[in-house]
């Protein structure tokens, strides 16, 4: 049954087979996507026609590699921009949220806490449409009352940033709160006794302690924003983010360029995951 108990041969063999099948199921789509990025064929399918790097580097009339594909490169740039802003905003506000719910006492705290976790149970599509409608309502109001045309209220990069921020900040708040719970508050009292004010205490002591959680949640926030589709779908203007752009291409037929982008994405996200877990481990050991 478990490792301390005797196991029949069939039992352990069955489990091993299950794991093998499961991991094949898990990795098959990713592996095949990566492999076909290097296939010298016009379509992302077998048979294998030889190894090529042209889907990355070529700049030919019938074959444009990702490094020369303006539309895709532009959308990667838009996504990077959006993800950076979302990360900054979410980490800032999320850390404030963690301090608010862990260290402050005020009326209606429970209600506010419930509101803070509610984005987790609201489907991303609903967040997208409600923010789209509210911004349109506000835009109409500003135009009719003051004859102001505010770019922020129209679908576009800034609305996408706000939409993604609205639920990613919850995640940051939860992760940072979890670490703040472990913080020994006598350290703060000691610093206060030595004459530090509250902001000095937070800056020099509490934030230092929270650093691994902040870095970790920042990395996750960046990835979630970079990959978000559901909320972005409704808020995106003329500048498409990478997932939206890829979706349009996949829906209308595909070329191995998409495989090439996917390969780069898989590589990039694995690296980011590796680095952030190493950083977290190192800081954990340091404290």
């Amino acid at each position: 049954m478990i490792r301390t108990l005797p196991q029949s041969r069939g039992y352990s063999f069955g489990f091993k087979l299950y794991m093998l099948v499961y991991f094949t199921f898990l990795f098959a789509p990713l592996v095949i996507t990566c492999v076909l990025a290097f296939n010298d064929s016009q379509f992302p399918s077998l048979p294998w026609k030889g190894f090529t790097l042209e889907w990355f580097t070529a700049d030919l009339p019938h074959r444009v590699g990702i490094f020369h594909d303006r539309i895709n490169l532009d959308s990667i740039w838009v996504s990077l921009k959006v993800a950076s802003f979302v990360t900054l905003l979410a980490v800032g506000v999320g850390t404030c949220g963690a301090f608010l719910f862990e260290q402050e006492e005020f009326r209606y705290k429970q209600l506010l806490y419930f509101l803070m976790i509610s984005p987790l149970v609201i489907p991303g599509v609903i967040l997208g449409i409600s923010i789209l409608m509210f911004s349109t309502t506000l835009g109409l109001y500003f135009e009719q009352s003051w004859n102001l045309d505010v770019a922020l209220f129209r679908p576009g990069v800034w609305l996408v940033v706000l939409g993604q921020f609205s639920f990613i900040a919850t995640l940051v708040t939860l992760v940072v709160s979890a670490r703040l719970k472990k913080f020994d508050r006598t350290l703060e009292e000691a610093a206060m006794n030595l004459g530090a004010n509250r902001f000095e205490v937070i800056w020099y002591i509490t934030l230092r302690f929270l650093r691994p959680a902040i870095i970790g949640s920042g990395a996750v926030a960046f990835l979630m924003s970079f990959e978000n589709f559901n909320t972005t779908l409704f808020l995106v203007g003329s500048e498409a983010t990478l997932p939206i752009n890829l979706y349009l291409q996949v829906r209308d037929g595909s070329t191995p360029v998409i495989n090439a982008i996917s390969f780069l994405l898989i590589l990039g996200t694995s690296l980011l995951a590796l680095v952030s877990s190493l950083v977290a481990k190192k800081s954990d050991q340091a404290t």
Partner: protein
Amino acid sequence: MNTSARAKNRNFRWGLLFFLAPVCLWLFLLIVLPHIDLLIMSFRAENDMGDMVWSLSNYRNFFEEPVYWLTYVRTAIYSVLVTFLTFCITLPLAFYITKVVCPRYQGFLTILLLMPFWVSELVRVYGWMILLRESGVVNHFLLKIGLLNQPIEMLYRDTTMVLGLVYTSMLFMVVPLISVLESLDDSLIEAAHDLGANTWSILFKIIIPHATPGIVSGSIVVFMLTLGNYLTPNLMGGKNSLWFTEQIYNQFIASFNWNQGSAFGFLLLIISSLIVWLGLTLSRQKLGKVVQ
């Protein structure tokens, strides 16, 4: 003494304001007000004169048009099915990693398990598409070994869509399951084994009761993500496997009927809250506890 206490108190209030302001701005401007707006819009419609008036017609449309409520019911049932399937697939996996495998490989297997989920959902769905489509890799191999005479279309079926949805949501089930099974004391299983319990009674009398909090939190997340998914049903499901989020998208982007779309949005919100609430009540869990 008195002045220092007052100074501390003033500091305290400033600190509260400093933390409270951004959080309130975030929650009220991006969560509360937009959803109130959504609710209001869903109750407004054009009358015969072309003016916007209060009306229930958006909701009436939903119940009178079978295609709408059939999609709604279908989406909810399929989401429950996907949640159940995901649980059945990941429970043995979580059990193997926490209890059976040699501890040396435990960390490695966990990392291996989580890795694919760092990659964008779109890439994963795309991977399934090139595997399963008519000119896809699976068909290529089946033709080559002679199991098939001509390629069959495996994409655009309900089964494929369910497969895609299960694949996308496995992570959110396996992580809570692993953490809850890690806290299960091995000696309980050993004792049951010594007293002659077989595998099934150990599973249903010890493992599942202990794992209930993890099962509930995993199920809630999986259910929510499946219900609100747009990408997988849209790309892997066929013309007949419409998902309710696609109806919302159609109302907003294709027909430009925002009032009807907000009514649909609200209906989706209602069913998701209802089923989550039902799950929490039946298993006696609390949302605030589950999300941690």
